[in-house]
């Protein structure tokens, strides 16, 4: 519905002294999508966001939001975005409602019935002083202030930190709704599962460099899992090593632990060829392991 990009960067680079916090970032975030910006802590996610919002100035390159230059038109940009900073801090002596009123005033007013609706959806208590809230409840106030002016682009730095799982799900629904309305969401996160659930496309950043840009669908096919079997009797590791996508098999008495990124039915078939399976646990491998497995080459070649 709108052919301009939500966010566009060209060769965006930021050095802190000699340290390259962000190197040559080329990125396009479209309207109507949730873009997940994934990377381990300290990868340059926050630096990227702060640079495109004109909080800090790029060493080289440029960025635009909704087609407007991020520095020249910074005020106009901020009229049309919602922003949740990372490691959110607010004014401890104001209540949630005071805080929202303050920012609403700076924006020339908001639709308060929408604010109340958001507060209800997130189960936020706006009558307490922000300083007296737990970090999750404080985060809700931060989310409401970002959503309340129905921004064209939402830029959020680790926004779900501190939220309980139920609220995380509600928040993800809210992000999907924003994208469905043709608006854009830029979501930085260090948790793969969150990004997988909500994003359409994912950019992966590591040591200041964008090392992959792909759809969540592709990424999911790369999702490594840590699988642990417990058997009633000792087993032969060779049974598992033969399965496609299995690596790093370790056997300890009756326990088998392996990394796996293939088809689950093949693995299960191999496992059930032994009798006496007592237990199976399967969990998502952490991001770092995915990087080490898949993106080592990109990093070296970059």
């Amino acid at each position: 519905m709108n052919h301009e990009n939500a966010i566009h960067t060209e060769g965006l680079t930021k050095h802190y002294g000699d340290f390259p916090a962000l190197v040559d970032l080329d990125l396009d975030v479209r309207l109507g999508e949730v873009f997940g910006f994934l990377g381990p802590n300290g990868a340059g996610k926050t630096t990227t966001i702060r640079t495109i919002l004109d909080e800090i100035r790029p060493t080289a390159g440029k960025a635009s939001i909704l087609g407007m230059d991020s520095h020249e038109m910074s005020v106009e940009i901020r009229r049309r975005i919602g922003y949740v900073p990372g490691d959110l801090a607010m004014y401890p002596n104001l209540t949630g409602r005071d805080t929202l009123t303050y920012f609403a005033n700076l924006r020339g007013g908001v639709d308060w019935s929408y604010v109340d609706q958001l507060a209800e959806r997130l189960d936020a208590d706006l009558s307490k002083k922000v300083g007296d809230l737990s970090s999750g409840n404080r985060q809700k106030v931060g989310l409401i202030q970002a959503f309340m002016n129905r921004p064209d682009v939402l830029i959020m730095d680790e926004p779900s930190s501190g939220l309980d799982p139920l609220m995380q799900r509600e928040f993800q629904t809210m992000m999907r709704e924003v994208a469905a309305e043709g608006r854009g969401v830029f979501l930085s996160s260090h948790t793969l599962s969150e990004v997988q659930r909500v994003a359409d496309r994912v950019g992966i950043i590591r040591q200041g460099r964008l090392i992959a840009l792909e759809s969540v669908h592709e990424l999911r096919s790369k999702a490594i899992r840590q699988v642990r079997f417990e058997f009633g009797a000792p087993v032969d590791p060779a049974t598992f090593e033969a399965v496609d996508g299995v690596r790093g098999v370790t056997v300890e008495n009756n326990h088998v632990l392996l990394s796996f990124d293939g088809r689950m039915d093949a693995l299960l078939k191999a496992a059930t060829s032994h009798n006496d399976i007592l237990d199976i646990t399967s969990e998502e491998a952490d991001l770092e392991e995915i990087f080490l497995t898949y993106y080592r080459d990109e990093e070296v070649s970059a």
Partner: protein
Amino acid sequence: MLANIATKTVRDRWKGFAIGSAVIAVILWWGMIIYQDIDLSIYTSMPDVFLSMMNIPPDADVGSLAYGAVYASYGALTLAGLALSVGSSSVAGEERHGTLGLLLGNPKSRTAVLASKAAALVGLTALGALIMWIGALIVPPATGVSVEGMHPNALMLHIFAIALFFGSLAMAISAWTGKQTLATGVTVGAMIVSFIAAGLFPIIEGWEDLRKAVPWYYYDGSQPVFNGVDWGHLAVLGGGIALFWLVAYVGVNHRDLRERDVGTTILDRLRTNPLTRKVIDRLAGSARVSAIWIKTLSDHQALIVVTAYVMGLLAVMMGPLYGLMDEAVLQFAADLPETLVAMVGGADMSTAAGFYQAEIYSLMAPVAVMAVTIVVAAKGIAGEESARTMGLLLGNPVPRRRIILEKTVTMIVGATIVGGVTFVGTAIGNAIGNLDVSLGNIAAISVLVTALGIVFGALAMAISAATGRTKLVTYSTAGTAFVSYMVFAFLPLSEGLAGWAKASPFYYFLGSDPLNNGMPWGHLAALVAMFVALTVLAVMLYDRRDLRQSG
């Protein structure tokens, strides 16, 4: 572990002590050069009581004058100020930052933490005293000034004791209440009142003995620079310190630790009261956050109200006090030569106007207005960055220059409140005491002191905009203000250097003696021009810089 907490505090704080003390030593060196230019015969016939008020020993010479003027008052106030800032942040500061819980997560008792903080306080105060002491030993031979018969060692010991006294008082309040701001405010108030009372009481007939009730008397009542150590007086201060430590020990162990500090204001209390809720809700809620400058003003309400209140009260009190002053002092003051008068900010104490200028306007009022403007400027930009709220604030469609300008409005409003209340207080004191000072002139000097405070506030704003570092802003602006005062007050004592006084903003505040001569419009225009230039600079610097995310 205990040593680690203490050494960490020392590591965080030693620079402030080193720089503060070194500045005092440099000013001593400077003072001695200037004092050599002065004709000292003027001191020979002064009444003791007047000299004691100005910390000048009866048989003054260059050395003791410099020690008296520079070390005994400014030096002691500086070191005590540094010590009380360490004392007030000792326990409450860690609570405010939410780090005390972390600290006590280690196998250390509250008492051990307190003991480490106390050890750091003693060490830091000793460091400052040591640097000043080295200055006191080196400067006289370097400038060729004889300090024979002086007791710099005794003076330094007394300064160390009074600084530790106020540092410990702040620590006691900090440990007992967990409120850093309260500890700082109360201790600064106690120190200033004590300093003024020790100077004023001796010159008011019948009140001479009252000075023995204030701590400052036990610091310089015996004139240690001239008479050597007074162990009795030091014992009194020592007793006070021991008492404060005991209070701190009991206090920190008996109470619940606070989490991150969320202050409760009077408005908040009224807001929860059903009777007043409706009106106050508007005032404390929607009205308070209706604009950046109003919210900032609300954030500083306590500072502004307390400062204005204290200034107003002092200004009212001075009227009737003037009538109580010893006739002999007044007569004598009338005959003082001009060069000496310059030392108390150019005030002729024999007239009511001069008395008001010396007691209220030359030092107290500028300090009060600047306390507000510098704090508003430092917290306004650098403070929001170190609290990490600036990113959120600038997530809204407001240009950076608007943040600077709105915070500047707050600064001006705060300064005007303090200056205005000082004016009203002085006008009332003037009326009660039947002093005949022109109301128009009181208004003129009040406007000027407000403008002076705003100039230094704008300097603080520019540094805040350029660096984003709260402590740097506060220390460098306060330091510049202090040096400016010295330039204005002391350079005119030396003929060759007198012209340089015009480089100081203080010259445009007091240089024309506005309390006697009325408003110097040209000087006011000069102050306004400085303010405008600094504000433009602040806007430009802030537009250019990367925002900081932490202090």
